[in-house]
Protein backbone atom coordinates (compact mmCIF):
# COMPACT_ATOMS: atom_id res chain seq x y z
CA UNK A 1 0.00 0.00 0.00
CA UNK A 2 2.89 2.32 0.86
CA UNK A 3 6.04 1.89 -1.15
CA UNK A 4 9.04 4.08 -0.42
CA UNK A 5 12.11 3.90 -2.67
CA UNK A 6 15.49 5.58 -2.13
CA UNK A 7 13.86 8.43 -0.21
CA UNK A 8 16.19 11.32 0.58
CA UNK A 9 15.27 14.47 2.47
CA UNK A 10 17.86 17.17 3.06
CA UNK A 11 17.46 20.41 4.96
CA UNK A 12 20.34 22.44 3.55
CA UNK A 13 23.46 20.48 4.44
CA UNK A 14 21.69 18.29 6.97
CA UNK A 15 20.40 14.98 5.62
CA UNK A 16 17.38 13.85 7.61
CA UNK A 17 16.78 10.80 5.40
CA UNK A 18 19.66 9.20 3.48
CA UNK A 19 17.99 6.75 1.12
CA UNK A 20 15.14 4.90 2.81
CA UNK A 21 13.38 1.89 1.26
CA UNK A 22 10.23 0.70 2.97
CA UNK A 23 6.99 -1.13 2.16
CA UNK A 24 3.85 -1.30 4.26
CA UNK A 25 1.03 -3.62 3.18
CA UNK A 26 -2.69 -3.15 3.64
CA UNK A 27 -3.84 -4.40 7.04
CA UNK A 28 -0.39 -4.18 8.56
CA UNK A 29 0.73 -2.16 11.59
CA UNK A 30 4.32 -1.23 10.90
CA UNK A 31 6.16 0.50 13.75
CA UNK A 32 9.16 2.73 13.15
CA UNK A 33 11.63 2.87 16.03
CA UNK A 34 14.59 5.18 16.35
CA UNK A 35 16.24 7.80 18.51
CA UNK A 36 15.01 11.41 18.53
CA UNK A 37 16.21 13.18 15.43
CA UNK A 38 16.69 9.92 13.49
CA UNK A 39 14.26 11.06 10.80
CA UNK A 40 11.11 9.18 11.90
CA UNK A 41 8.81 12.21 11.66
CA UNK A 42 10.33 13.33 8.39
CA UNK A 43 9.74 9.85 6.95
CA UNK A 44 6.05 9.93 7.88
CA UNK A 45 5.55 13.49 6.67
CA UNK A 46 7.07 12.62 3.30
CA UNK A 47 4.24 10.11 2.77
CA UNK A 48 1.48 12.75 2.86
CA UNK A 49 3.79 15.53 1.66
CA UNK A 50 3.55 17.73 4.73
CA UNK A 51 7.27 17.57 3.96
CA UNK A 52 8.36 17.56 0.32
CA UNK A 53 11.00 14.84 -0.33
CA UNK A 54 14.31 15.94 -1.86
CA UNK A 55 14.51 12.83 -4.04
CA UNK A 56 13.26 9.27 -4.23
CA UNK A 57 9.76 7.87 -4.68
CA UNK A 58 6.79 7.50 -2.38
CA UNK A 59 3.95 5.49 -3.88
CA UNK A 60 0.62 5.33 -2.06
CA UNK A 61 -1.77 2.74 -3.53
CA UNK A 62 0.50 2.64 -6.56
CA UNK A 63 0.06 6.36 -7.19
CA UNK A 64 3.21 8.45 -7.62
CA UNK A 65 3.71 11.91 -6.08
CA UNK A 66 1.10 14.59 -6.83
CA UNK A 67 1.84 17.22 -9.48
CA UNK A 68 -0.91 19.78 -8.69
CA UNK A 69 -2.58 21.15 -5.58
CA UNK A 70 -5.75 19.26 -6.47
CA UNK A 71 -3.79 16.00 -6.78
CA UNK A 72 -2.10 16.73 -3.45
CA UNK A 73 -5.48 17.18 -1.72
CA UNK A 74 -6.71 14.00 -3.40
CA UNK A 75 -3.66 12.08 -2.10
CA UNK A 76 -4.14 13.41 1.45
CA UNK A 77 -7.84 12.52 1.39
CA UNK A 78 -6.85 8.85 1.49
CA UNK A 79 -4.20 9.25 4.21
CA UNK A 80 -5.21 9.74 7.83
CA UNK A 81 -2.71 11.27 10.23
CA UNK A 82 -2.47 11.07 14.00
CA UNK A 83 -0.27 13.53 15.86
CA UNK A 84 1.52 13.40 19.20
CA UNK A 85 -0.60 16.29 20.53
CA UNK A 86 -3.75 15.05 18.74
CA UNK A 87 -4.20 18.51 17.12
CA UNK A 88 -7.95 18.62 17.65
CA UNK A 89 -9.71 21.97 17.34
CA UNK A 90 -10.32 22.67 21.05
CA UNK A 91 -13.53 24.72 20.82
CA UNK A 92 -15.34 22.42 18.37
CA UNK A 93 -17.46 19.47 19.45
CA UNK A 94 -16.08 15.96 19.29
CA UNK A 95 -18.41 15.13 16.38
CA UNK A 96 -17.36 18.19 14.37
CA UNK A 97 -13.72 17.36 14.97
CA UNK A 98 -14.32 13.89 13.52
CA UNK A 99 -16.32 15.40 10.65
CA UNK A 100 -13.30 17.53 9.70
CA UNK A 101 -11.85 14.23 8.47
CA UNK A 102 -14.54 14.28 5.77
CA UNK A 103 -14.41 17.96 4.77
CA UNK A 104 -12.39 17.18 1.65
CA UNK A 105 -15.34 15.33 0.12
CA UNK A 106 -18.15 17.64 1.25
CA UNK A 107 -19.90 20.52 -0.52
CA UNK A 108 -17.79 23.42 0.73
CA UNK A 109 -20.38 26.16 1.18
CA UNK A 110 -22.83 23.97 3.09
CA UNK A 111 -20.01 22.75 5.33
CA UNK A 112 -18.86 26.32 5.98
CA UNK A 113 -22.43 27.09 7.09
CA UNK A 114 -22.24 24.05 9.41
CA UNK A 115 -24.63 21.96 7.31
CA UNK A 116 -23.28 18.42 6.86
CA UNK A 117 -24.51 15.52 4.71
CA UNK A 118 -26.20 12.83 6.80
CA UNK A 119 -23.98 10.15 5.21
CA UNK A 120 -20.91 11.90 6.55
CA UNK A 121 -22.40 12.33 10.02
CA UNK A 122 -23.14 8.58 10.08
CA UNK A 123 -19.57 7.78 9.02
CA UNK A 124 -18.24 10.10 11.75
CA UNK A 125 -20.47 8.52 14.42
CA UNK A 126 -19.38 5.07 13.28
CA UNK A 127 -15.72 6.12 13.61
CA UNK A 128 -16.44 7.39 17.15
CA UNK A 129 -18.07 4.06 17.99
CA UNK A 130 -14.87 2.27 16.92
CA UNK A 131 -12.88 4.19 19.53
CA UNK A 132 -15.68 3.77 22.07
CA UNK A 133 -16.49 7.49 22.34
CA UNK A 134 -19.89 7.73 20.61
CA UNK A 135 -21.38 8.91 23.92
CA UNK A 136 -19.18 12.03 23.92
CA UNK A 137 -20.09 13.20 20.39
CA UNK A 138 -21.65 16.49 21.45
CA UNK A 139 -19.07 17.41 24.13
CA UNK A 140 -16.53 20.07 23.38
CA UNK A 141 -13.21 18.45 22.44
CA UNK A 142 -11.23 20.27 25.13
CA UNK A 143 -13.46 18.78 27.86
CA UNK A 144 -12.02 15.29 27.18
CA UNK A 145 -8.97 13.73 28.80
CA UNK A 146 -5.68 13.48 26.88
CA UNK A 147 -6.23 9.81 26.02
CA UNK A 148 -9.81 10.42 24.87
CA UNK A 149 -8.66 13.35 22.74
CA UNK A 150 -6.08 11.14 21.07
CA UNK A 151 -8.79 8.58 20.33
CA UNK A 152 -10.95 11.32 18.79
CA UNK A 153 -7.84 11.99 16.66
CA UNK A 154 -7.96 8.33 15.57
CA UNK A 155 -11.68 8.63 14.85
CA UNK A 156 -10.98 11.69 12.68
CA UNK A 157 -8.45 9.65 10.70
CA UNK A 158 -10.87 6.68 10.44
CA UNK A 159 -13.65 9.01 9.22
CA UNK A 160 -11.51 9.68 6.17
CA UNK A 161 -11.98 5.97 5.34
CA UNK A 162 -8.29 6.02 4.49
CA UNK A 163 -6.09 3.44 2.84
CA UNK A 164 -3.18 4.59 4.97
CA UNK A 165 -2.85 5.96 8.50
CA UNK A 166 0.31 7.73 9.65
CA UNK A 167 0.74 7.99 13.42
CA UNK A 168 3.54 10.25 14.66
CA UNK A 169 4.40 9.35 18.28
CA UNK A 170 0.69 8.89 19.08
CA UNK A 171 1.25 7.80 22.70
CA UNK A 172 4.26 9.94 23.67
CA UNK A 173 2.22 12.11 26.05
CA UNK A 174 -0.05 9.38 27.46
CA UNK A 175 0.16 7.17 30.55
CA UNK A 176 0.92 3.46 29.92
CA UNK A 177 -2.66 2.26 30.37
CA UNK A 178 -4.13 4.83 27.98
CA UNK A 179 -1.25 4.29 25.58
CA UNK A 180 -2.19 0.60 25.27
CA UNK A 181 -5.83 1.50 24.53
CA UNK A 182 -4.73 3.89 21.78
CA UNK A 183 -2.27 1.42 20.25
CA UNK A 184 -4.92 -1.29 20.39
CA UNK A 185 -7.33 1.03 18.51
CA UNK A 186 -4.63 1.49 15.85
CA UNK A 187 -3.92 -2.22 15.55
CA UNK A 188 -7.61 -3.01 15.16
CA UNK A 189 -7.91 -0.29 12.51
CA UNK A 190 -5.17 -2.08 10.58
CA UNK A 191 -6.43 -5.64 11.05
CA UNK A 192 -10.20 -5.12 10.84
CA UNK A 193 -10.35 -2.36 8.23
CA UNK A 194 -7.33 -3.38 6.16
CA UNK A 195 -5.61 -0.03 6.57
CA UNK A 196 -1.82 0.23 6.20
CA UNK A 197 -0.67 1.85 9.45
CA UNK A 198 2.78 3.38 9.73
CA UNK A 199 3.43 4.36 13.33
CA UNK A 200 6.42 6.07 14.97
CA UNK A 201 7.14 5.08 18.54
CA UNK A 202 10.00 5.54 20.90
CA UNK A 203 9.04 2.86 23.38
CA UNK A 204 10.60 -0.46 22.38
CA UNK A 205 8.23 -2.46 24.58
CA UNK A 206 5.10 -1.06 22.87
CA UNK A 207 6.64 -1.82 19.48
CA UNK A 208 7.26 -5.43 20.50
CA UNK A 209 3.77 -5.75 21.91
CA UNK A 210 1.70 -4.22 19.11
CA UNK A 211 3.66 -4.19 15.85
CA UNK A 212 3.20 -6.65 13.02
CA UNK A 213 6.58 -5.55 11.75
CA UNK A 214 9.28 -3.23 13.11
CA UNK A 215 11.56 -0.94 11.15
CA UNK A 216 14.52 0.59 12.98
CA UNK A 217 15.87 3.90 11.76
CA UNK A 218 19.07 5.58 12.82
CA UNK A 219 20.68 8.65 11.36
CA UNK A 220 18.36 8.69 8.33
CA UNK A 221 18.90 5.06 7.36
CA UNK A 222 16.99 1.81 7.91
CA UNK A 223 19.20 -0.28 10.23
CA UNK A 224 16.73 -3.00 11.16
CA UNK A 225 13.69 -4.61 9.63
CA UNK A 226 11.89 -7.63 10.96
CA UNK A 227 9.26 -9.22 13.16
CA UNK A 228 9.00 -8.09 16.80
CA UNK A 229 10.53 -11.39 17.96
CA UNK A 230 13.64 -10.66 15.88
CA UNK A 231 14.35 -7.44 17.78
CA UNK A 232 17.28 -8.61 19.89
CA UNK A 233 19.95 -6.71 21.79
CA UNK A 234 22.21 -6.49 18.74
CA UNK A 235 19.42 -4.93 16.68
CA UNK A 236 18.64 -2.49 19.46
CA UNK A 237 22.23 -1.27 19.67
CA UNK A 238 22.13 -0.72 15.91
CA UNK A 239 18.97 1.41 16.26
CA UNK A 240 20.13 3.17 19.42
CA UNK A 241 23.94 3.37 19.09
CA UNK A 242 25.74 4.02 22.35
CA UNK A 243 22.90 2.42 24.25
CA UNK A 244 24.60 0.54 27.06
CA UNK A 245 24.53 -3.20 26.72
CA UNK A 246 22.89 -3.58 30.10
CA UNK A 247 20.08 -1.19 29.11
CA UNK A 248 19.33 -3.32 26.06
CA UNK A 249 19.43 -6.37 28.30
CA UNK A 250 16.86 -4.69 30.54
CA UNK A 251 14.66 -4.01 27.51
CA UNK A 252 14.99 -7.64 26.45
CA UNK A 253 14.17 -8.75 29.94
CA UNK A 254 11.00 -6.66 29.84
CA UNK A 255 10.09 -8.20 26.51
CA UNK A 256 10.66 -11.73 27.82
CA UNK A 257 8.49 -10.85 30.79
CA UNK A 258 5.72 -9.68 28.50
CA UNK A 259 5.96 -12.85 26.44
CA UNK A 260 5.76 -14.87 29.64
CA UNK A 261 2.70 -12.88 30.65
CA UNK A 262 1.05 -13.53 27.28
Amino acid at each position, binding site marked *: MIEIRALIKAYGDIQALRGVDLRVSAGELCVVLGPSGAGKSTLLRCVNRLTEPTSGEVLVAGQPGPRTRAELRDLRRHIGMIFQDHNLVPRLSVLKNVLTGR*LATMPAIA*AALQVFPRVDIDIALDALRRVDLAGRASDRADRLSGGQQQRVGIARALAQQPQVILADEPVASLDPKTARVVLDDLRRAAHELGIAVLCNLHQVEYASEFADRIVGICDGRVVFEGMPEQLHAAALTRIYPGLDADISRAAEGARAEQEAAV
Partner: protein
Amino acid sequence: MSRFRLLLGGAWTMSRGLKWLAMLAAAAAVLVWSAMGIGLSVAELLRGLPWIWDLVSRMLPPNWTFLGRLVRPVIETVQIALWGTLLSVLLALPLCFLAARNLSPSLAVFHLTRQALNALRGINEIIFALIFVAAVGLGPFAGVLALSIHGAGMLGKFFAEAVEEIDAGPVEALRATGTRPALVAVFAVLPQVIPSWIASTLYRFEVNLRAATILGMIGAGGIGFELVSSLKLFQYQDTATCVLVILAMVMTADYLSSRLRARILAA
Protein backbone atom coordinates in the same frame (compact mmCIF):
# COMPACT_ATOMS: atom_id res chain seq x y z
CA MET B 1 25.39 48.81 59.06
CA SER B 2 22.22 50.38 57.72
CA ARG B 3 19.06 48.30 57.73
CA PHE B 4 18.41 49.14 54.08
CA ARG B 5 20.57 48.75 51.02
CA LEU B 6 20.01 50.17 47.54
CA LEU B 7 20.06 47.40 44.90
CA LEU B 8 20.31 48.39 41.28
CA GLY B 9 20.40 45.93 38.38
CA GLY B 10 23.91 44.62 37.66
CA ALA B 11 27.26 45.84 38.89
CA TRP B 12 27.91 49.58 39.01
CA THR B 13 31.07 50.98 37.49
CA MET B 14 32.24 54.54 37.01
CA SER B 15 31.62 54.52 33.23
CA ARG B 16 28.15 53.00 33.61
CA GLY B 17 27.24 55.65 36.18
CA LEU B 18 28.44 58.44 33.88
CA LYS B 19 26.41 57.02 31.01
CA TRP B 20 23.29 57.08 33.18
CA LEU B 21 23.96 60.65 34.30
CA ALA B 22 24.35 61.74 30.69
CA MET B 23 21.06 60.08 29.71
CA LEU B 24 19.21 61.68 32.62
CA ALA B 25 20.63 65.11 31.72
CA ALA B 26 19.54 64.64 28.09
CA ALA B 27 16.01 63.64 29.14
CA ALA B 28 15.77 66.68 31.44
CA ALA B 29 16.97 68.96 28.63
CA VAL B 30 14.29 67.65 26.22
CA LEU B 31 11.56 68.17 28.85
CA VAL B 32 12.65 71.75 29.65
CA TRP B 33 12.86 72.57 25.93
CA SER B 34 9.31 71.18 25.38
CA ALA B 35 7.96 73.09 28.39
CA MET B 36 9.28 76.33 26.88
CA GLY B 37 7.78 75.43 23.53
CA ILE B 38 4.28 74.98 24.94
CA GLY B 39 4.44 77.86 27.41
CA LEU B 40 4.06 75.57 30.42
CA SER B 41 3.47 77.89 33.36
CA VAL B 42 2.06 77.34 36.83
CA ALA B 43 1.55 81.10 37.19
CA GLU B 44 -0.68 81.16 34.07
CA LEU B 45 -2.75 78.32 35.49
CA LEU B 46 -3.18 80.13 38.83
CA ARG B 47 -4.10 83.36 37.05
CA GLY B 48 -6.67 81.45 34.98
CA LEU B 49 -8.31 79.72 37.94
CA PRO B 50 -10.94 82.42 38.55
CA TRP B 51 -11.94 82.29 34.89
CA ILE B 52 -12.25 78.52 35.00
CA TRP B 53 -14.40 78.90 38.11
CA ASP B 54 -16.45 81.54 36.32
CA LEU B 55 -17.11 79.18 33.39
CA VAL B 56 -18.03 76.30 35.68
CA SER B 57 -20.42 78.45 37.68
CA ARG B 58 -22.13 79.56 34.48
CA MET B 59 -22.57 75.87 33.51
CA LEU B 60 -24.38 75.12 36.77
CA PRO B 61 -26.99 74.00 37.20
CA PRO B 62 -27.26 71.98 33.96
CA ASN B 63 -30.29 72.86 31.87
CA TRP B 64 -32.37 69.67 32.14
CA THR B 65 -35.03 70.94 29.73
CA PHE B 66 -32.33 70.72 27.05
CA LEU B 67 -32.40 66.91 27.45
CA GLY B 68 -35.39 66.66 25.11
CA ARG B 69 -33.37 68.25 22.29
CA LEU B 70 -30.59 65.67 22.83
CA VAL B 71 -32.63 62.49 22.30
CA ARG B 72 -32.21 62.45 18.53
CA PRO B 73 -28.49 63.37 18.58
CA VAL B 74 -27.79 60.64 21.17
CA ILE B 75 -29.55 58.03 19.03
CA GLU B 76 -27.65 59.26 15.98
CA THR B 77 -24.34 58.98 17.86
CA VAL B 78 -25.05 55.35 18.75
CA GLN B 79 -26.09 54.63 15.14
CA ILE B 80 -22.84 56.14 13.82
CA ALA B 81 -20.78 54.02 16.24
CA LEU B 82 -22.77 50.90 15.32
CA TRP B 83 -22.32 51.18 11.56
CA GLY B 84 -18.78 52.53 11.85
CA THR B 85 -17.88 49.38 13.80
CA LEU B 86 -19.76 46.98 11.51
CA LEU B 87 -18.19 48.38 8.34
CA SER B 88 -14.69 48.28 9.84
CA VAL B 89 -15.22 44.62 10.78
CA LEU B 90 -16.27 43.83 7.20
CA LEU B 91 -13.20 45.62 5.85
CA ALA B 92 -10.85 44.02 8.38
CA LEU B 93 -12.05 40.42 7.87
CA PRO B 94 -10.47 39.73 4.47
CA LEU B 95 -7.39 41.86 5.24
CA CYS B 96 -6.50 40.17 8.52
CA PHE B 97 -5.63 36.83 6.89
CA LEU B 98 -3.27 38.59 4.49
CA ALA B 99 -1.75 40.52 7.41
CA ALA B 100 -1.12 37.43 9.57
CA ARG B 101 2.43 36.17 9.18
CA ASN B 102 1.44 32.50 9.55
CA LEU B 103 -1.36 32.43 6.94
CA SER B 104 -0.37 35.18 4.50
CA PRO B 105 0.19 33.84 0.98
CA SER B 106 3.59 35.54 0.73
CA LEU B 107 5.92 37.76 2.72
CA ALA B 108 5.38 40.62 0.25
CA VAL B 109 1.59 40.47 0.69
CA PHE B 110 2.07 40.32 4.46
CA HIS B 111 4.25 43.46 4.59
CA LEU B 112 2.08 45.33 2.10
CA THR B 113 -1.15 44.69 4.03
CA ARG B 114 0.50 45.46 7.36
CA GLN B 115 1.74 48.81 6.01
CA ALA B 116 -1.67 49.62 4.53
CA LEU B 117 -3.30 48.89 7.90
CA ASN B 118 -0.65 51.02 9.63
CA ALA B 119 -1.48 53.92 7.32
CA LEU B 120 -5.23 53.65 8.03
CA ARG B 121 -4.53 53.44 11.73
CA GLY B 122 -2.01 56.27 11.69
CA ILE B 123 -4.49 58.86 10.44
CA ASN B 124 -6.89 60.12 13.11
CA GLU B 125 -10.62 59.58 12.53
CA ILE B 126 -11.22 63.37 12.73
CA ILE B 127 -8.91 63.88 9.76
CA PHE B 128 -10.75 61.16 7.83
CA ALA B 129 -14.03 62.83 8.83
CA LEU B 130 -12.86 66.18 7.42
CA ILE B 131 -12.01 64.43 4.15
CA PHE B 132 -15.35 62.58 3.98
CA VAL B 133 -17.35 65.70 4.86
CA ALA B 134 -15.72 67.28 1.81
CA ALA B 135 -16.49 64.17 -0.26
CA VAL B 136 -20.05 63.15 0.76
CA GLY B 137 -21.22 66.36 2.46
CA LEU B 138 -22.09 67.27 6.05
CA GLY B 139 -23.91 64.69 8.15
CA PRO B 140 -23.57 61.39 9.99
CA PHE B 141 -22.70 59.32 6.89
CA ALA B 142 -19.34 61.11 6.62
CA GLY B 143 -18.73 60.20 10.26
CA VAL B 144 -19.61 56.55 9.66
CA LEU B 145 -17.16 56.37 6.75
CA ALA B 146 -14.40 57.99 8.83
CA LEU B 147 -14.88 55.54 11.70
CA SER B 148 -14.98 52.51 9.40
CA ILE B 149 -11.77 53.40 7.55
CA HIS B 150 -9.76 54.24 10.66
CA GLY B 151 -11.34 51.30 12.54
CA ALA B 152 -10.47 48.88 9.71
CA GLY B 153 -6.81 49.69 10.31
CA MET B 154 -7.18 49.03 14.03
CA LEU B 155 -9.31 45.88 13.80
CA GLY B 156 -7.26 44.49 10.88
CA LYS B 157 -4.20 44.57 13.11
CA PHE B 158 -5.98 43.12 16.17
CA PHE B 159 -7.63 40.37 14.08
CA ALA B 160 -4.30 39.52 12.39
CA GLU B 161 -2.52 39.29 15.73
CA ALA B 162 -5.20 36.90 16.99
CA VAL B 163 -4.64 34.75 13.88
CA GLU B 164 -0.90 34.76 14.51
CA GLU B 165 -1.39 33.48 18.05
CA ILE B 166 -3.38 30.34 17.13
CA ASP B 167 -2.11 26.82 17.69
CA ALA B 168 -0.79 25.67 14.31
CA GLY B 169 -1.47 21.99 15.12
CA PRO B 170 -5.16 21.86 14.13
CA VAL B 171 -4.39 23.79 10.93
CA GLU B 172 -1.79 21.21 9.94
CA ALA B 173 -4.12 18.37 10.92
CA LEU B 174 -6.86 19.68 8.61
CA ARG B 175 -4.42 20.33 5.78
CA ALA B 176 -3.30 16.72 6.17
CA THR B 177 -6.85 15.48 5.48
CA GLY B 178 -6.87 17.16 2.07
CA THR B 179 -9.29 19.91 3.12
CA ARG B 180 -9.15 22.99 0.89
CA PRO B 181 -7.64 26.15 2.43
CA ALA B 182 -10.92 28.11 2.78
CA LEU B 183 -12.47 25.31 4.86
CA VAL B 184 -9.26 24.96 6.90
CA ALA B 185 -9.74 28.64 7.81
CA VAL B 186 -13.39 28.07 8.77
CA PHE B 187 -12.81 24.94 10.87
CA ALA B 188 -9.30 25.29 12.30
CA VAL B 189 -8.68 29.06 12.45
CA LEU B 190 -12.08 30.66 13.16
CA PRO B 191 -12.94 28.63 16.28
CA GLN B 192 -9.58 29.64 17.76
CA VAL B 193 -9.84 33.39 17.03
CA ILE B 194 -13.57 34.13 17.40
CA PRO B 195 -13.55 35.00 21.13
CA SER B 196 -10.67 37.43 20.69
CA TRP B 197 -12.25 38.90 17.52
CA ILE B 198 -15.55 39.56 19.29
CA ALA B 199 -13.75 41.15 22.25
CA SER B 200 -11.76 43.44 19.92
CA THR B 201 -14.96 44.41 18.08
CA LEU B 202 -16.76 45.29 21.32
CA TYR B 203 -13.80 47.36 22.43
CA ARG B 204 -13.78 49.05 19.05
CA PHE B 205 -17.48 49.93 19.51
CA GLU B 206 -16.63 51.67 22.80
CA VAL B 207 -13.86 53.67 21.14
CA ASN B 208 -16.13 54.52 18.19
CA LEU B 209 -18.86 55.75 20.51
CA ARG B 210 -16.39 58.11 22.19
CA ALA B 211 -15.16 59.28 18.79
CA ALA B 212 -18.73 59.72 17.53
CA THR B 213 -19.45 62.19 20.36
CA ILE B 214 -16.97 64.68 18.86
CA LEU B 215 -17.52 64.03 15.14
CA GLY B 216 -20.39 66.55 15.28
CA MET B 217 -17.94 69.37 16.01
CA ILE B 218 -16.77 69.19 12.40
CA GLY B 219 -20.22 68.52 11.01
CA ALA B 220 -20.01 64.74 10.75
CA GLY B 221 -23.14 63.98 12.80
CA GLY B 222 -23.89 63.06 16.39
CA ILE B 223 -24.15 64.88 19.71
CA GLY B 224 -20.94 66.88 19.22
CA PHE B 225 -22.85 69.33 17.03
CA GLU B 226 -25.16 70.30 19.92
CA LEU B 227 -22.18 70.64 22.24
CA VAL B 228 -20.34 73.04 19.94
CA SER B 229 -23.48 75.06 19.10
CA SER B 230 -24.30 75.59 22.77
CA LEU B 231 -20.71 76.78 23.37
CA LYS B 232 -20.88 79.18 20.43
CA LEU B 233 -24.20 80.58 21.69
CA PHE B 234 -22.76 80.95 25.24
CA GLN B 235 -25.52 78.59 26.52
CA TYR B 236 -23.15 77.02 29.05
CA GLN B 237 -25.93 75.30 31.00
CA ASP B 238 -26.88 73.44 27.79
CA THR B 239 -23.21 72.55 27.35
CA ALA B 240 -23.17 71.02 30.82
CA THR B 241 -26.16 68.84 29.93
CA CYS B 242 -24.37 67.67 26.76
CA VAL B 243 -21.21 66.79 28.69
CA LEU B 244 -23.19 64.82 31.31
CA VAL B 245 -25.16 62.94 28.64
CA ILE B 246 -21.92 62.04 26.81
CA LEU B 247 -20.42 60.87 30.09
CA ALA B 248 -23.46 58.68 30.79
CA MET B 249 -23.37 57.18 27.27
CA VAL B 250 -19.68 56.38 27.38
CA MET B 251 -19.84 54.90 30.86
CA THR B 252 -22.83 52.72 29.98
CA ALA B 253 -21.08 51.44 26.84
CA ASP B 254 -17.85 50.74 28.76
CA TYR B 255 -19.71 48.87 31.47
CA LEU B 256 -21.79 46.72 29.10
CA SER B 257 -18.94 45.94 26.76
CA SER B 258 -16.41 45.10 29.47
CA ARG B 259 -18.91 42.71 31.09
CA LEU B 260 -19.66 41.08 27.73
CA ARG B 261 -15.97 40.81 26.88
CA ALA B 262 -15.17 39.19 30.21
CA ARG B 263 -17.92 36.62 29.66
CA ILE B 264 -16.84 35.83 26.11
CA LEU B 265 -13.15 35.48 26.95
CA ALA B 266 -13.94 33.25 29.93
CA ALA B 267 -15.99 30.81 27.80
